[in-house]
């Protein structure tokens, strides 16, 4: 018997029979084996649940990672698409703005046919109360050159007066804004035979964005809201450039009637300006250049 149990094949066969018996026993309805296995289930079930839960979480986590990668990729694609579309929209808006400006420039050109109109962008503006010259990106290389005491009117895209050019360099020019206390222009009320006045910058009023109006005759009746345009007297500015509207009039001193004017131009929000160069000056310059060239040729 001992020899028999020492035989491995006998043991294997015995186990096989035992297992078959269990299988058969377990197949019987109301098998006692169920009761035998109940305590085992009580221990095993929570462990299995825990492991299953952990496995599920790992699975979910892995799925989340893989899904997240896919979602992120998709999100990146969508963001790129949105950025591209936004860029296209911005370009469209920019094109519309440029179109409007060019349309305005053509309008200015039509209105002031004796002047050549140079478009220019504002490079820099005032640094403080006194360092207040505006710099624009058009200069001698673009055909702007100041000679003697001449100057050029500078207007915005709506052809409202901004100021005048006081210095030209090769690539840029400096503009004296109409709020500066050194700025003066002859104006008139924008109506037939409108009263002639003088508009100038004022140290006190410029903080409020206003200009001073002087030279008002006693018999002239100015009213708030009256539109003032350049009169053309003096020769620097062409006639009819809109300057602004009368804000307030002070008749307290009949010999020194004063008014304040609110300019149309929004100098705080300037981006593009137009410089008005009379054709005569260009012709003079080109005539001088021709003369110089022919003289040089003759000498050569």
């Amino acid at each position, binding site marked *: 018997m001992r020899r028999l149990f020492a035989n491995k094949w006998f043991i294997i066969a015995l186990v096989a029979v035992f297992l078959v018996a269990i299988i058969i026993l377990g197949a019987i309805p109301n098998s006692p084996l169920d009761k035998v296995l109940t305590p085992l289930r009580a221990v095993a079930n929570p462990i299995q649940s825990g492991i299953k839960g952990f496995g599920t979480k790992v699975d979910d986590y892995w799925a989340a990672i893989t899904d997240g990668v896919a979602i992120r990729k998709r999100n990146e694609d969508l963001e790129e698409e949105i950025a591209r579309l936004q860029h296209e929209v911005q370009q469209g808006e920019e094109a519309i703005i440029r179109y409007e400006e060019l349309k305005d420039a053509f309008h200015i050109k039509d209105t002031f046919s004796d002047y050549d109109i140079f478009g220019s962008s504002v490079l820099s*503006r005032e640094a403080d109360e006194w*360092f207040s010259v505006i710099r624009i990106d058009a200069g001698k290389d673009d055909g702007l050159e100041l000679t003697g005491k001449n100057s050029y009117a500078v207007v915005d895209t709506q052809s409202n007066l901004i100021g005048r050019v006081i210095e030209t360099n090769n690539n840029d020019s*400096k503009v004296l804004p109409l709020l500066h206390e050194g700025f003066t222009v002859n104006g008139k009320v924008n109506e037939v035979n409108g009263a002639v006045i003088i508009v100038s910058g004022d140290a*006190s009023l410029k903080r409020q964005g206003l200009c001073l109006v002087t030279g008002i005759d006693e018999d002239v009746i100015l009213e708030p809201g009256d539109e003032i345009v350049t009169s053309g007297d003096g020769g620097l500015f062409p006639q009819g450039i809109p300057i602004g509207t009368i804000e307030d009039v002070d008749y307290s001193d009949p010999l020194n009637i004063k008014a304040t004017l609110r300019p149309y131009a929004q100098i705080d929000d300037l981006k593009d300006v137009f410089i008005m160069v009379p054709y005569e000056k260009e012709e003079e310059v080109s005539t001088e250049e021709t003369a110089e060239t022919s003289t040089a040729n003759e000498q050569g």
Partner: protein
Amino acid sequence: MNKVELIRKIAIYSVYILFLTCFQVSFPDKLSLNGQIADLMFVFVVLVSYMFGLKDGIIIGLIVGILRDCFAAPAVIGLNGSVVSSVGIGVFLLFAVAVFSASVFTIKIKRKPAFALLTLISVTALYKIFGHGIIFIWTRIFSKTLYHLSAKELFVDSILTQIFLNILAAIPLYLLLRFVGPYKKGQNPMLRAQEGKGADSSWLTI
């Protein structure tokens, strides 16, 4: 100071100068209150001079002054009565500002932060008072026009508003120069050594 420190100093100064100068003349409306503009260039020169000494202040003052004149020169009424764009006023102004700021409230009070603001207030007030005075005299002589400002416009709208704006600008700028400035630890080591020996322009010091 070794080569690396020198390059670092130049690079950081360059970044500050270009950024502050360009920002001020490009977006003055963002720095504006009551017709005045926070003067970043001015404040920068004052703080550099106060914190890092006369030599740095003068060099930075001259460079920023040149840029100020290039970007936004003042228009002045010339000797012939016509308005011209001047060159050199900005350079002179910021040079003077640098000298003053580096020489007052520095050694004896050991360049304390609170006195940086006091220096800024003093220099700003002096600048505005002298500015108004010079323009008043100049316009009277050469343009025969009146430079009429009421006391409120002069002191409240111009001087006090400018001081207020400059102080607002100075606080972040001081912190930047102190912690992300041209010198490690926010102090000029050469200046410190000199001041230890009492050699930094003590004749100028109050």
